[in-house]
C-alpha cells in the first residue's frame, strides 16, 4: 500500500509537471495562433473537405485518354479499329480506379461527342495520342511505385497497358 501511494505521488508530480509544461507551451503558441486566426487564415479550416484520393488525377486521366481516342476515331474512321480497343481499355481502367477509390463514375460516359476532334491529319493525330499515352504511362508508373501494396498490381497493369498503347500507335 505504501509503495503504491508513493507511486501515486510520483505520478501526480509528473502529471503536474507535464501540466505546467503544457500550459507554458500553450501560452507561447497562443500568441501567434491568435494573431493568425485574426487574419482569417484558418477560417476555412472549420469544415475541411475530405482529402481527394491520391489516385483522383489518374482516374481523370483515364477518362480523358478514352475521350481523346474516341474523338480521334470519329475524326479518322480509318484509325477506328486501332483506337477503339484503346479507348475501351481506358474506360476499363477508369472503372477499376473508381471502384478502388470509392468514386462514383459519371453517369454519362465522357465521349468524343463533347470533345472537339484534334486538328490535323492521321499522322499528327497519332503523334498526339502517342505523346498523351507516354505521359499517362509515366503518371501511372509513378503512382504504382509509391502506392500501398494493395493498389500496386492494378496500377502496374494500367502503366503497362498505356505502354502497349504507345506501341500500337507507332
Amino acid at each position, binding site marked *: 500500500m505504501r509503495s503504491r501511494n508513493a507511486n501515486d505521488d510520483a505520478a501526480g508530480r509528473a502529471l503536474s509537471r507535464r501540466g505546467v509544461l503544457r500550459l507554458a507551451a500553450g501560452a507561447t503558441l497562443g500568441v501567434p495562433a491568435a494573431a493568425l486566426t485574426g487574419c482569417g487564415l484558418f477560417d476555412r479550416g472549420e469544415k475541411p473537405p475530405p482529402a481527394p484520393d491520391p489516385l483522383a488525377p489518374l482516374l481523370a486521366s483515364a477518362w480523358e485518354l478514352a475521350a481523346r481516342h474516341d474523338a480521334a476515331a470519329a475524326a479518322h474512321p480509318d484509325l477506328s479499329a486501332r483506337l477503339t480497343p484503346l479507348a475501351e481499355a481506358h474506360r476499363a481502367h477508369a472503372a477499376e480506379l473508381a471502384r478502388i477509390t470509392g468514386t462514383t463514375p459519371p453517369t454519362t460516359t465522357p465521349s468524343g461527342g463533347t470533345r472537339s476532334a484534334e486538328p490535323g491529319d492521321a499522322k499528327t493525330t497519332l503523334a498526339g495520342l502517342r505523346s498523351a499515352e507516354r505521359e499517362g504511362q509515366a503518371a501511372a508508373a509513378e503512382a504504382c511505385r509509391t502506392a500501398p501494396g494493395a493498389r500496386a*498490381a492494378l496500377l502496374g497493369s494500367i502503366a*503497362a497497358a498505356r505502354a*502497349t498503347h504507345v506501341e500500337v500507335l507507332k
Partner: protein
Amino acid sequence: MSEGLSAALAAEHAAIFAYGPIGVHLDAGAEKEARATEAAHRARRDELVLALAGDQATPPPAEPGYALPFPVTDRASALRLAVTIEERTGAVWRAALPVTTGAQRAQSLDALTDCAVRATRWRRIAGVVPTTVPFPGRPG
C-alpha cells in the same frame, strides 16, 4: 519480398529456355526480334540474381529443361508460344508488385511493362487482334 522475386527468376529462366525453340521456327525479321527478346530476359535474370543475392536469398537455378505448354512445330505455334511466354512472365512480375517496395517495385514494374509491350509486338507479328489487353499480367 524475395519470394515474389524468386518466382520472377524462375519465370525468366523458363522464358530464356523457350526462346530457343521459338527462334528456330521464325523468319529472319522475327528471329531477330526473338533474339533481342531473349537477351532482354537474360538481362532481367542477371539483375534478379544480384537482387536476390543482396537479400541473402538463394536464387533458384535454371532447370535443365522446361516442358513447353504446347508443341512448337511451325511459325504459328512459335509466335503463339512467344505471346504466351510474355503473358505468363508478365503475370509473375505483376504478382511481385504488391510484395515489393522501392527499387524492387520499380524493377518489377519495368519488367511487367516490357513483357506487356513484347506480347503486343508478338501479337502484331502473328496477326492476332486485338494486339493489346486492358490489364496486362492480370490473371484470367
